[in-house]
Structure formats: C-alpha cells, structure tokens
C-alpha cells in the first residue's frame, strides 16, 4: 500500500487497513491529520485498500 505523506511516499506491506489504525501505525494522532482516499476526505473508520490512492495531510503547525 502506497501512502502519500506531504512530499514523501511511504510503502506498507498491507492490503487493507482502517484509516484510524493506519494513522496509529504512522504515529500520527487522528486529531492532527486528514485522510484522503481517491481525492475524497474520509473518516477514521474508513477501510483503505492497496488499490486506493491515499494521501495524509498533517494539520499541526508551529510558530
């Protein structure tokens, strides 16, 4: 499964995963990220598969 995280692409050896679990795997708090599946924003209970295009936008900013 390929995941686009800002300008990096991460590869995980899984076929399908719940968005919430994926965020946990990546060490990202669900309160600090948007999960975009095939260009559509989805909730944390969404199932993501290796066929989907997945993008994660971290929402924390500093300053």
């Amino acid at each position: 499964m390929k995941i686009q995280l800002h300008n990096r692409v991460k590869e995980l050896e899984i076929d399908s995963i719940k968005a919430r679990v994926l965020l946990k795997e990546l060490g990202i708090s669900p309160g600090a990220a948007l999960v975009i599946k095939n260009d559509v924003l989805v909730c944390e209970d969404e199932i993501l598969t290796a066929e989907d295009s997945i993008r994660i936008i971290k929402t924390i900013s500093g300053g």
Partner: protein
Amino acid sequence: MRCRNCREKAVIHMPAHKLALCGSCYISWFEGYTERTIQKFNMLKPGEQILVAVSGGKDSLALWQVLTRLGVNTTALYIHLGIAQKEYSDTSLAKARAFEERLNSSLIVIDVAKELGMSVPETKRLMSRKVCATCGLIKRYYMNKTAADGEFDAIATGHNLDDETASLLGNTMEWRLSYLKRQHPVLAERPPGLKKKVKPFCYFTEKETATYAFLTGIDYIMTECPYALHASSIEYKNVLNALEENGAGRKRRFYDHLLKAQGHLAFPEEAELNRCRICNQPTTLSVCSFCNISKKIREIKDKKPSAISRQHSAVAEV
C-alpha cells in the same frame, strides 16, 4: 459513518461536538459556527472594517474566506518576512495574492526588508532574542500600525483552538500571569491606539480548519516556516492531542475554563500605555521595542560600532 443532517457519507467525525457531517453540511456548519462564536464573544459590530492578518496558511486564508462569506467588510494584510529558506515568504505571498483574486477582495502587503532595511532572519545578528520573538514583535507592530493608519476597527487573526491551548499550556507551565490575563478571543481596543483584536476561529481545532480548507479548495502553503520546526508549540500541541484522544473535548474545556477563571484570579496590574516618542504607536516604554530594533538596524547599516555594545540591551514587550 453517516452525516447527522442528511445521512450522506460523513467526511469528518468530531467527537468533541458529538457530530459527524458530510462535506457540504460541514461547510455550512463551519461558517455558521464561526458566526456564532463571533456573536458569543461580541467580537464584531455591524459595519466594522476588519483587517485580516494572513500568512498564506490554512487558518488565515480560511478566516478571510469565511468572514467575506458572512458579509464582513474585510481587507487582508500580508507581512513579507523575507524568509528565503524553502522560499517560504515568496511562496506564501503568492498563495495570499492568488486568494485575493479568488475572493475578489483586497490585500495590503508589507515588505519587512524594505521597511526596516533588514529581513526577519537577518535581525538574528543584532538581537539576543530568538528570531521568532523578533518576528512576533514586528508582526504585531505592523498589524496595529496598518489597522490604525487605515482606520480599521479590528484586527482578526486565524488562531485556532490548538494554537490557543498550546500557548495556554506554555504560559501555564511558566505561570506567565500577564499573558494568562490577556489570552482571550477578543481583546478590546486600548487607548492610546492599540486596536481591537479578535480570533473568530478560537473554537475550531486545527483539523477542523484544515478540513474546511480542503473541502472548499483553498490553496494554502503546506510547508512550515523553517523556524517553526523546533517550536515548543508543536510539542504542546502533540501533548494536547494525546489528551484529547483519551477524552474528547478536553482542549475546549482547558480553554473555556481559563476564560471563566480570568474573572476570579488576581493578576498583576497592566502597565499604562502611552505613545512612542518616535513613531506614535502605543507602547509601555517611552520608545517602543520596534523603534529600538529599527534604530539598531540603522546603526549597523551606518556601521557605527556603538551598536555592538548595545546588542544585549533589553527589549521589552510591545
């Protein structure tokens, strides 16, 4: 998960609000909630002219858009800090400019390097304080001055609940009482010449503003300011998000309880404001911190050695 309003598929679940919404219901909810927050704190009066401080980031551009959609008279202000690393300033200005066109609104741009003779990162050489401290001072100065010169009634900033609770946590850890006293969604005008400041997004989490920006297609700068990467505010935000994960609504309660406690706590008296002898802007000193910085810059530019010995003179707030 389904939208509470229309039963379409939800795009966001907000446990703190016990609410899940689809994209179009979310957009109306977000704009309506901003309006209710403005009313709750009596932030704006009808007909007031508002200067929206924009950075090119999601929160400030979203705020500019929401206020415009709510029919508020807005002009935006972008302060170019001269941060060349990762082309941060140029890119964020381009985003703000493009957004001005999209909203058919107007944007005032202040170029710090032109005004002051030195970009914000360059001031590092002459200040003992960190870049962010000088940057904050310069931004606050130009915001107030632009609002005063343009006869605006208030300055609106895009601070969200995560920003507010992160600074609340930081201020509490250090017990900075004067900051705790002044942390509020609306700071009334203070004579002589300190403009009203409002934070209409103070109840939205960062995720909520990002969701609004995504759903309405706002093109914002995603790169962080290079100086923000080690900011303690990010550490505080992570801690607060971890708390929130185990107890929805904790961030909001932390903030609301501060606002309630403010009426009961004994804070030190605030220093009187007067006008700066040089620039006429409000300050607690006789010459304001901004004019002190700009004097140091001129001295360096004129290569007067005296500037070096004054490098470590204290620069107080405002």
